[in-house]
């Protein structure tokens, strides 16, 4: 099968709801895949950031709490996507409307550019340290010129691999996933064997905030950002689960708990070495030989992360817009190159995480409450039909979701302003991301059952038909709304 046929097959597969015959993932598969793909640059960086702000004993609990609780809060989406067999963006149509889910996809794609930049700039940082060691010219060893040059060269290579399709990616993940796991094992050996936990817990952070409480809450908020960030990625794995229980527990154990091993050891290494950047840890903690090996592994791991992120973004775009060409779909990642021109974006990783926290907590609150409000009953056929369905709402946007989004955004920015870093009165007690999740959910529920009650009328009728014991109808007003659908259905039945 050619590469384009493989891509076409994957688009088919990503677009369509998966059936029993397509589902191969058990609980163990979930844990392995989510840990393998989830543990990457961002885990070490968020751990490193936490370790530069807090002592070891506080960093440990800030990381565990900050990642596990957000994943638990958005976990009902894992059950829904496993049950329906849908990708996240198709599944989100019920809550956001057809056009609203496209906006959600666009926001995801923009944030994805940030994740790609972080992975590739860290690769650039690793490459300049290797260049320095092998004696390459000076401009290739500095983070202002060398790191962007390497990041952009490897960006071009990543785009080419992502464009080449799933076969090339399969080979890369076979190298990249073991590479990142080897780095993690190396860090654990160094922390436990060379230094010991006593030294870790006795070490002081290099950049603590003046106010201890604010420091804990800020570190917590950064981890909350990573925890909520998995929301758009739930669908691609959960829809392949053999059981809902496997999806629920696998998602939680993978993203909510096991991923924290990388964050926690990242924090411990940052405490020992005094830097949040994993590229600084390698030679400092492991010595020259192991350090250089670590840097090479970091290059491979980040290259793989970038390729997987690019491929996922392109494939998701094809799922939402099946008519888009593969080249155009891959080209949507190109703006990331602009972010790699200087270290500014990479250095603002903490700020980026706060934006992710604000956006994904808000969307998470809306999606989860919508799912619970409908008691888990969503008309899958209507999710695919923007022309005439009960999820069309107002020109494809759900007004209740828009109101919830605006109120929750205002609440987040009042609690914590990610631009200026100004903390509101609640931040020291509650942080911002988790309460914003609840604000979004509560506001969505209240306006959906009061002000915008009429927007849900068709769904209520459908729900009533289900409650009356009718077999789940996949077509509404079939004679009028979907003549082609009826014809195709009859053809299939015949």
């Amino acid at each position, binding site marked *: 099968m050619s590469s384009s046929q493989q891509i*076409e097959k994957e688009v*088919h597969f990503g*677009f*369509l*709801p*998966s*059936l*029993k015959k397509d*589902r191969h993932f058990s609980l163990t598969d979930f844990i392995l895949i989510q840990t393998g793909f989830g543990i990457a640059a961002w885990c070490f960086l968020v751990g490193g950031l936490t370790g530069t702000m807090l002592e070891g004993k506080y960093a440990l*609990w800030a990381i*565990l*709490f900050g990642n*596990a609780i957000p*994943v*638990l809060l958005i*976990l009902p989406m894992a*059950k829904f996507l496993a049950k329906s*067999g849908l990708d996240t963006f198709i599944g989100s*149509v019920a809550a956001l409307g*057809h*056009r609203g*889910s*496209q906006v959600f996809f666009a926001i995801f794609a923009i944030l994805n550019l940030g994740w790609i930049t972080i992975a590739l700039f860290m690769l650039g940082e690793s490459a300049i340290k290797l260049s320095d060691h092998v004696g390459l010219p000076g401009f290739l060893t500095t983070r202002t010129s060398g790191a962007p040059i390497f990041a952009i060269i490897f960006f071009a290579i990543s785009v080419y691999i992502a464009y080449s399709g799933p076969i090339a990616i399969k080979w890369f993940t076979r190298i990249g996933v073991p590479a990142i796991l080897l780095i993690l094992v190396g860090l654990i050996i160094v922390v436990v064997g060379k230094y010991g936990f006593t030294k870790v817990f006795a070490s002081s952070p290099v950049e603590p905030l003046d106010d201890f409480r604010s420091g*804990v809450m800020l570190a917590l908020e950064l981890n909350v950002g990573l925890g909520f960030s998995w929301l758009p990625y739930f669908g691609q794995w959960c829809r392949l*689960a*053999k*059981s*809902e*229980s*496997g*999806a*629920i*527990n696998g998602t*939680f154990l993978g993203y*909510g708990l096991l991923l924290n091993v990388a964050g926690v050891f990242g924090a411990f290494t940052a405490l020992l070495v005094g830097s949040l950047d994993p590229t600084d840890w390698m030679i400092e903690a492991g010595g020259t030989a192991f350090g250089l090996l670590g840097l090479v592994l970091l290059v491979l791991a980040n290259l793989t992360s970038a390729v997987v992120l690019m491929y996922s973004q392109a494939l998701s775009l094809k*799922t*939402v817009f*099946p*008519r888009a060409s593969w080249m155009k779909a891959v080209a949507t990642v190109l703006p990331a190159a602009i972010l790699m021109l200087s270290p500014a974006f990479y250095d603002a990783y903490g700020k980026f995480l706060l934006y992710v926290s604000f956006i994904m907590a808000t969307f998470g609150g809306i999606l989860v409450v919508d799912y619970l409000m409908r008691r888990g009953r969503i008309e*899958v056929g209507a999710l*695919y*039909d*923007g*022309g*005439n369905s009960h999820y069309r709402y107002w020109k*494809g946007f759900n007004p209740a979701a828009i109101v919830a989004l605006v109120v929750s955004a205002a609440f987040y920015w009042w609690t914590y302003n990610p631009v200026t870093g100004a903390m509101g009165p609640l931040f*020291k007690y509650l942080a911002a991301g988790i309460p914003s999740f609840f604000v979004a959910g509560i506001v969505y529920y209240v306006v959906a059952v009061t002000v915008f009650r009429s927007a849900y009328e068709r769904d209520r009728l459908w729900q009533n038909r289900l409650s009356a014991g009718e077999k*789940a109808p*996949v077509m509404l007003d079939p004679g009028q*709304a*979907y*003549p*082609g*659908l*009826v*014809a*195709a*259905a009859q053809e*299939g*039945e015949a």
Partner: protein
Amino acid sequence: MAFSRRIGAHTESDDPFIRDLYRELVSRLREMRDQPEQAEPSNWRAWIVPFASCLVIAIIFFAYLYPQF
């Protein structure tokens, strides 16, 4: 645009990719209607591990860390 036209129109599209895609969709929707449980359903027991883990983490966080603020 994927969601801006009716499914029925897509099943009669001139583009073989779109036509096949939506015909397959219709076939799958029918199968889901006839057999709604495509994944083994879960009950409250599926939530024990996530809730218990978070409860332990939250208790330690609030009981051990919060008083030190």
